[in-house]
């Protein structure tokens, strides 16, 4: 088994095919989208492949250490050009192919007009634990 991170972006990813802001959908289209996401997570729980799913607020800031005895420096809110993560799902699957298949399904979540969003999701393998038998 290998863990993968599916990253969803507020901005920074290539534009989706069906790229319409959510407040321009109908309320029913929003409900259908939310239901699709819930069903997707529930199905992965059933198959034993779901690990975690979280959403992030859009606001935030960069923070760094500024030396002994000084408060940390913050730089925010984020510039409009910054790549911005909206949330993630972590899955635990048998193969890279399976991870790609699931990311594709998640990207097919319905949007405006009930049509798939074709949203670009970032798929990233975790660096795993060192295996006991390596030779």
């Amino acid at each position: 088994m290998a863990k993968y991170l599916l990253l969803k972006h507020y901005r920074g990813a290539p534009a989706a095919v069906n790229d319409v802001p959510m407040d321009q959908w109908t309320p029913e289209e929003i409900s259908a989208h939310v239901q699709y996401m819930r069903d997707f997570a529930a199905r992965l729980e059933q198959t034993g492949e779901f690990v975690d799913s979280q959403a992030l607020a859009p606001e935030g800031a960069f923070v760094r250490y500024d030396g002994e005895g000084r408060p940390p420096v913050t730089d925010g809110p984020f510039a409009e050009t910054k790549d911005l993560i909206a949330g993630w799902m972590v899955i635990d699957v048998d193969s890279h192919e399976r991870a790609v298949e699931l990311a594709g399904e998640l990207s097919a979540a319905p949007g405006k007009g009930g049509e798939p969003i074709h949203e670009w999701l970032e798929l990233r393998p975790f660096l795993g634990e060192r295996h006991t038998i390596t030779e």
Partner: protein
Amino acid sequence: MDEALLRSLTPHVLGILVRRGADFAAAEDAVQDALVEAVRVWPDDPPRDPKGWLITVAWRRFLDATRADTARRRREDRVEEEPAPGPAPAADDTLRLYFLCAHPSLTPSSAVALTLRAVGGLTTRQIAQAYLVPEATMAQRISRAKRTVSGVRFDRPGDVATVLRVLYLVFNEGYSGDVDLAAEAIRLTRQLAAAIDHPEVAGLLALMLLHHARRAARTAPDGSLVPLAEQDRGRWDTRAIAEGVEILQAALARDRLGEFQAQAAVAALHADAPTAGETDWVQIVEWYDELARLTDSPVVRLNRAVAVGEADGPRAGLAALAAVDEKVPRHTAVAAYLHERDGDLTTAARLYAEAALRASDLAERDHLTRQAARLNARRAR
């Protein structure tokens, strides 16, 4: 086996161990061990006297642990004889435990965790699941909390307000995982109300019951939020409402008003309205005026602006809102709602979308996005 009954015995048993001279941290561990043992043994072999059983087992565990400890430190084993139980002032012990677990030296998250374990009898794993943190993290939080209060004398009463804040926090966390924190908070507040006669304890209990009564109606089958005005009032729990109103009326009759009684009064007025249109908004505004006097909280002023908008019209509501700090959470959402009531759908839709970006939880964000979408769809037609 009735797990709620088992857990309701926790504070008594712990109080008795501490009264016998056990230090709080060790006694608390021993009681947890005894609870685990009870869950294992009672289904096949239920005791005649559950409380006596728990005291005996917990005390034995405490002695074993102390002996192991002292042996390790090569000290003489002094704790030998089990002291006579004596008359157990159970209510006082329970009350002191509440005070200890909500001690002002603890951070809110530590006080919550310690209260749920030492008073509520929940296991570390259950508390960790409820707050979605790893069990090891929660175990550390609890043991640090126990160290923090280790020097606090057990015999001194504390401030009820600190206890109420902790219980309020637990209630507000709501429901996640297999532990229903709202129900647990109600159980603990009920138990506190039995141990101390205080109108604000009653006020908080009434507030919790009145809110809990609406829980089933607050969420649609698809998980989306249902605002108060749109809830199916037939799904409200009338027994919980009746109990909440009765407790509140008895508390108010004592003429020692506090913020929880005032909040409960607002909740009672909502519960009392057969339809949203029949809500007595004028009285609700008066209660918010009382609350503002008691707490001077910006959140109260925000809620008051909503009530003013219903009582005196959206323009009056917007005027009241103008005096509230814009940084208060949900300020934008309230502005959106009042502008919609005022007929300015363009501004309302823009503000709903903006409020969605500032929402602090997913259900609220989806709800606000839907509100923006609803108005945009209407304007597009």
